[in-house]
């Protein structure tokens, strides 16, 4: 881990007496599972972003909310930092443990408490897997819309903490659009309900504030999600283009035609070839870009929209447009996209997934910029793109066993994110800031804006015990980062060694 990711940049680490803490936990919550031996802690040293690892001071695995309550009170009294973790699939190091902190694993809370088909909601514990909710709702013809690629494994508590997205966001929204209510515990161990069973609730919209707050404001203990009726049919079109620009323009034309597809994904040539090689989805490997456009809804509407989109794509210069002939082919088309990350992973020992968002019109310029940076850093980049909502996932290929490559990949990734900010976008669309993008936050927000974020944090957790060092950088971190950045600006390459 390089110096800029070190928690010490944010100040000296707290001093926690581990033995005394274990003793106090055993005394006050005797039935709580506490892991404290090195070999038991090791499996928890990272989340889905395995490049960053820290062995936690302690891991606790509660099974009842009362245990979490007492744990938080204890940590609050003793000023011990707490990092919450769900399934550990996050891609930004949001659940990266702290050397002097407790890792609070909520994975054992996996009960679906209630499904109300008439009310169209499900009340679940935070450790319930995203996909499990849709499976439980399926007998009623309902489902939970947000579908992050990790939906088979990721848990709803983490989805709320990260405001998780997926491939259907443009039409169905992010996690924040699909929640009714969250029960949480404050760092002082008090129970708060945000939102309600109605569509709104009095006072400030704390549910919206809390969604995506990355475990900085409280611990999620229960989530009520909205359920939607399952669309009758879904059809997918696959269009090939001989240039990325044409594919990008086609996306704008689809929307200009008044159509909001259920999913609208773009892949560039490197990603296409990787996916085809891995999945044999039937992708055209010579295309510079493909678009996958899924239309869902009631049969007759979908049929009409398919015809419209077919025409738009053809007029936009697609070299070929194919509609999946049957459900098997539709799933195959999607399998290529959904497995793009591991497919790219086969091209290279390691890959690093970025998550910037941009206004769609900036796409050609940003892709050109990425290509230039890729050349400059000597690392290949494959591009996978939620084209409908402007969320890019450049995948940087590298080999961690080659000296300096991880650092180069990180530096390249950072530059890509700053490029996104420069065109009016954001450093993260759905993966979160976590520890990974903490330094790029200094590029997206000025010190006054960061100060306001810290003020929000102080309203809930003035001692900064919940997930410190994530999401919002300290001003001293930004000063360090800014100083290094200026240094970078002066020299074309040698600065990389400092990363």
């Amino acid at each position, binding site marked *: 881990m390089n110096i800029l990711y070190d928690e010490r940049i944010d100040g000296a680490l707290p001093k926690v007496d581990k033995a005394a803490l274990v003793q106090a936990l055993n005394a006050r919550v005797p039935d709580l599972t506490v892991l404290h031996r090195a070999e038991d802690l090791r499996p928890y040293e990272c989340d889905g972003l395995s490049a960053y690892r820290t062995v936690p001071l302690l891991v606790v695995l509660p099974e009842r909310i009362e245990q979490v309550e007492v744990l938080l009170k204890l940590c609050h009294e003793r000023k011990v930092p707490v990092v919450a973790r769900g399934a550990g699939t996050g891609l930004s190091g949001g659940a990266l443990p702290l050397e002097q902190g407790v890792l609070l694993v909520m994975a054992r809370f996996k009960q679906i408490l209630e499904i109300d088909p*008439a009310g169209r909601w499900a009340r679940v514990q935070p450790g319930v897997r995203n996909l499990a909710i849709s499976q439980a709702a399926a007998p009623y013809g309902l489902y939970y819309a947000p579908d992050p690629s990790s939906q088979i494994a990721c848990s709803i508590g983490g989805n709320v903490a990260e405001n998780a997205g997926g491939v259907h966001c443009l039409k169905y929204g992010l996690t924040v659009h699909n929640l009714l209510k969250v029960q949480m515990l404050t760092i002082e161990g008090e129970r708060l309900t945000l939102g*309600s069973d109605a569509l709104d609730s009095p006072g*400030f919209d*704390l549910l919206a*504030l809390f969604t995506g*707050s990355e475990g900085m404001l409280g611990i999620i203990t229960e989530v009520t999600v909205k359920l939607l009726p399952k669309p009758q049919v879904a059809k997918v079109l696959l269009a090939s283009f001989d240039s990325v620009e044409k594919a990008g323009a086609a996306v704008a034309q689809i929307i200009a035609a008044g159509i909001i597809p259920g999913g609208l994904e773009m892949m560039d040539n490197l990603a296409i070839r990787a996916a085809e090689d891995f999945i044999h989805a039937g992708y055209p490997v010579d295309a510079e870009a493909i678009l996958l456009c899924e239309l869902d809804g009631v049969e*007759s509407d979908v049929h009409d929209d398919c015809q419209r989109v077919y025409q738009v794509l053809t007029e936009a210069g697609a070299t070929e447009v194919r509609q999946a002939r049957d459900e098997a082919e539709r799933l195959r088309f999607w399998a290529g996209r959904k497995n793009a990350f591991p497919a790219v992973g086969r091209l290279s020992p390691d890959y690093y997934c970025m998550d910037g968002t941009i206004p769609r019109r900036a796409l050609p310029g940003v892709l050109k910029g990425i290509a230039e940076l890729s050349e400059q850093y000597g690392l290949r980049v494959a591009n996978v793109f939620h084209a409908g909502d*402007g969320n890019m996932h450049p995948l940087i290929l590298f080999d961690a066993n080659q000296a300096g490559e991880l650092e180069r990949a990180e530096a390249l990734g950072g530059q890509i994110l700053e490029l996104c900010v420069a065109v009016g976008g954001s450093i993260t669309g759905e993966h979160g800031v976590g520890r990974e993008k903490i330094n790029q936050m200094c590029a997206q927000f000025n010190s006054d804006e960061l100060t306001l974020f810290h003020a929000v944090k102080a309203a809930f957790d003035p001692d900064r015990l919940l997930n410190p060092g994530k999401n919002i950088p300290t001003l001293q971190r930004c000063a360090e980062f800014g100083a290094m950045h200026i240094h970078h600006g002066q020299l074309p390459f040698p600065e990389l060694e400092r990363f």
Partner: protein
Amino acid sequence: MTERDFDASEQLLDQVRQALADDRPLCIQGSASKAFLGRPSAGERLDTRAHCGIVSYDPTELVITARAGTPLQTLRAAVEEAGQMLPFEPPAYGEQATLGGTIAAGLSGPRRPWAGSARDYALGTRVITGLGKHLRFGGEVMKNVAGYDLSRLLTGSFGALGVLTEVSLKVLPKPRACFSIKLSCDAERALLKLAEWGQQPMPISAACHSADFLYLRLESGEGSVAAAHERIGGEPIASAFWDDLNEHRLPFFAQPEPLWRLSLPNNTGILDLPGEQLIDWGGAQRWLKSSASAASIRQVVEAVGGHVTCYTAGITSEPFQPLPNLLLRYHRQLKTQLDPQGIFNPGRLYAQL
């Protein structure tokens, strides 16, 4: 763009800084079209209307950005011209309603249960804070999870946390087909039918029940709208009905009793309350014309998991549903952090804020 386009943010910032220096409260106001909502708030008027104009709008990006003083009408006309809409259908409650007031009040119209609320469409904001800074949060992109979601927190905060100066909203294409109908049906049966249809992929985008009629708006592609109409039947009505409902121009709203808004879980049955009721949002929002006391109405509504807002000024000292103590404490802490001198619309939401 109109000739009234003007960037008055410096003047607004100056006024806020002066108020901070003098430790004087400000009453943030656009056209005052929603002044009847909430508690009265004393303070020098900060008028946002000079800060006006659409800053950017590219229909294919599905985002419109405009200054807070921009009339809602101007915004609607611009998106309409491009065949798009503000899907949350904000009520204006007055010809001159501004974008800033619309977002600060966070109100949504008949399409809300199906399309989402004002805060769901808020992508970015610029805001003058209680530290006298003009800051930007969120932006013009659909997905953005960097930092806390201040834009959505500010939506519906009634100006208690800062002065909104600019807002970016997601917009959507208007549906290809739109058809409104009414059916003769009592309230009980209407709620049952709505619960049933809610579980099916029906193209319903508004559902209201009033005086033995169920009113529905069907919106989507031509095929599904025609199929739904065939299935449900009913008599065609003009789509202006929904504007009249949204703007409280239906005869129901002209009754002399105070007006109450009940926000309820969407499968709540008939509520037994004194006065007349109109069901909106497919059951999740009900309008009540009643002379009953706030406490008695709240008791019934709280019991089913809902909350109540009084829409007639001067009836109760707490027009918004009082918050549980702990939740109120965190509201106060947030207010203190973001507006330490308490100059923005003090007391408008709650006496303690």
